[in-house]
């Protein structure tokens, strides 16, 4: 069982990395790109038999307190088999 956490910069926060990647894509000829947001992806391995609901509650707390910074980032949490 795994937890997958995707962390992205909030819309209001300057994302120069995203902007630079977007510019590079345009220079390479990939048209139609209207925005790029560079974030982080964490894959967390969970012990077999872990209760998915309990894991979600615990990791939601960890993501809020530690894995992301709510001042500048949003996150999405997913628990998979």
């Amino acid at each position, binding site marked *: 069982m795994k937890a997958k956490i995707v962390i992205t910069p909030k819309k209001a926060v300057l994302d120069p990395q995203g902007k630079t990647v977007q510019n590079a894509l345009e220079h390479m000829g990939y048209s139609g790109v209207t925005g790029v947001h560079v974030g982080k992806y964490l894959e967390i391995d969970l012990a077999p038999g872990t209760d998915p609901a309990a894991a979600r509650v615990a990791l939601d707390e960890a993501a809020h307190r530690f894995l992301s*910074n709510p001042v500048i980032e949003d996150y999405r949490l997913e628990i998979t088999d």
Partner: protein
Amino acid sequence: MHFVVLQFPASNCDQDCLHAVRVLGHTSEFVWHKDTSLGAADAVIVPGGFSYGDYLRCGAIARFSPVMQAVQQFAANGGLVLGICNGFQILCEAGLLPGALVRNRDLQFHCEQVFLKTVNHETPFTAATPADVPLRMPIAHGEGCYFADDATLEQMRARRQILWQYCSMTGELTDDSNPNGSLQNIAGVANERFNVAGLMPHPDRASESILGSTDGRWIFESMIRAGIRPAAAQAA
């Protein structure tokens, strides 16, 4: 006055901070990040560096180290805490200061001299600073772009928590003098109670003429005056 300087794995301005306050005739010692006590601290300095390799986010891991529990308590009791560079990032991550520091807008690491306008002179970190004189200090950071949401910024302005802003040599707040894209040219801020402050520039590296500037002394001198006054009042 006795300063405690925290040491995390990969702190690298800890020696500079220890030395800077000794030059001013005061005592200082290191406290290791695994310690749970700040000893006889009158004030705490969280120094610059790359604590825990800046993994995850700058300051994100350091803020959960045992010594930071003691710093939280020390600050809650009204003790003076100054965070410099990575120390500023740690204090923001710890929730002791509002906002956050993100990647510089040009994605470059900036190692250069900047000028700072002191915005509020009525705090324990600024009271000794002469009025209308921009302070010259070095910066050395890749993630120094200050961010807070609009509501927080407005509150901070109203409460005068913005202590230092990047400015030109003559004191104007221009975009050219903003090295990292910080909102409102913010270089340093304080908490609501004005006993915790942080800034990206290095007063520790601008405290002796051999280093090219002594302007950083004004920040330590301010803390020293603020720290000594209550003790003197008690003795009287």
